[in-house]
């Protein structure tokens, strides 16, 4: 895969694209993980 880019622009288009997808996964993933971490505390309070 490392030889699949002909230009630097190709490389950045690909890596930035993956990074943007990861940003979305991270935002939702960490928010969900926070709810998972605190889930039992919320149940105990109710």
């Amino acid at each position, binding site marked *: *895969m*490392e030889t699949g880019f002909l230009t630097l622009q190709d*490389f950045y288009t*690909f*890596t930035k694209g*993956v*990074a943007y997808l*990861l940003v979305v*996964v*991270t935002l939702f*993933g*960490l928010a969900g*993980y*926070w709810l*998972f*971490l*605190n*889930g*039992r505390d919320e149940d105990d309070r109710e």
Partner: protein
Amino acid sequence: MSNLVAISRSSLLTPFNVVAGIIVLLGLIITFLRFTQGLGAVTNLSDYNPWGLWIGFDLLCGVALAAGGYVTSAAVYIFGLKKYHSAVRPAILTGFLGYALVVLALNYDVGRPWRLPYPFIIQQGTTSVLFEVGACVLLYLIVLFVEFTPSALEWLGLKKARNLILRLTMALTFLGVILSTLHQSSLGALFLIAPSKLHPLWYSQYIPVFFFVSSIIAGLSMVIFEGSLTHRYFADKMDAIHLKEKEDVVFGFGKAASFVLAGYFMIKVFGIAMDNNWHWLSTSWGAWFLVELLGFVALPSLLYATGVREKNIGLIKWTAAWTVLGIVVNRLNVGLIAFNWHLPASERYFPHWMEIALSLFVVTVGLIVFRFIVTHMPILYEHPDYKTPHA
């Protein structure tokens, strides 16, 4: 009289004292060899590998694992989480001893240790990351010493001096956080200069961020790990407040560590994505990288979360020990294992047995001093003459 002598001898000949005594004796012999015969006599360092175990373990791991001081004092004094107040003094003590031992170990590693103050008095070299690391470590060691002094001053009965130092608590906490942020990340930034030497899976433009975030994880885990050890061996020194707050500290810090580990996992994945290093994951180096990423980052994050949700204090304590080991693995990977990875096996570095023995000596000295201070000074209990909130 002879009975008393026999009792005092038997109380001295504990397994800890005997093992520590042997290690210290060995360490003193190696110290003599190091400073009379030079680095070549006691290390496997070379021009290819000028940084060995004393940097990879004693310095990189020592600084990361001493991060509990700034993490705990920031949580209590800046974020106002007063229920963790009992963890501040043990964390500050561990941090202070950690940094003091880093400087001690550095005196062995640096070829001409008497020149260590040169950057401050002869030539600054302010464009060097290493200067920034040196300056911050020096300043932070002073900050930690001042933060630790109230305990010693209470022990010595110097009430006025102790009250004076306490007024500086907030300023010292802010200074500690600023200096730690700077040098924890700069230790990672040192490797930015060696993109051709560090394996691509560990090398990243974000390595300063990796080092800083993982130092928070190290600090949180060390507070839990060290707290469980002190509870086991120094329970008689702990007062009711420390015993009562102990569980709060374990659950609170465990939850924080779990979340920060999850964030750290994601930024490590970003590191791979930004340099498009996915193809390296299918190599043997990739397998070792995945052991670190999945075994020492993702796994402890989930174990901490399970421990917090199930209120399983034992699981959190074991996870803390595992995470501390993970930080050591990470720093050794960056500093030694994945460094110079392209060299043939004959040129690769493996520490001399005397390097390992001296690292053990440094850790043992830390344990002996820690035991002396915890036994004599109000670290795990409030001094009866100072029952007000203290640092």
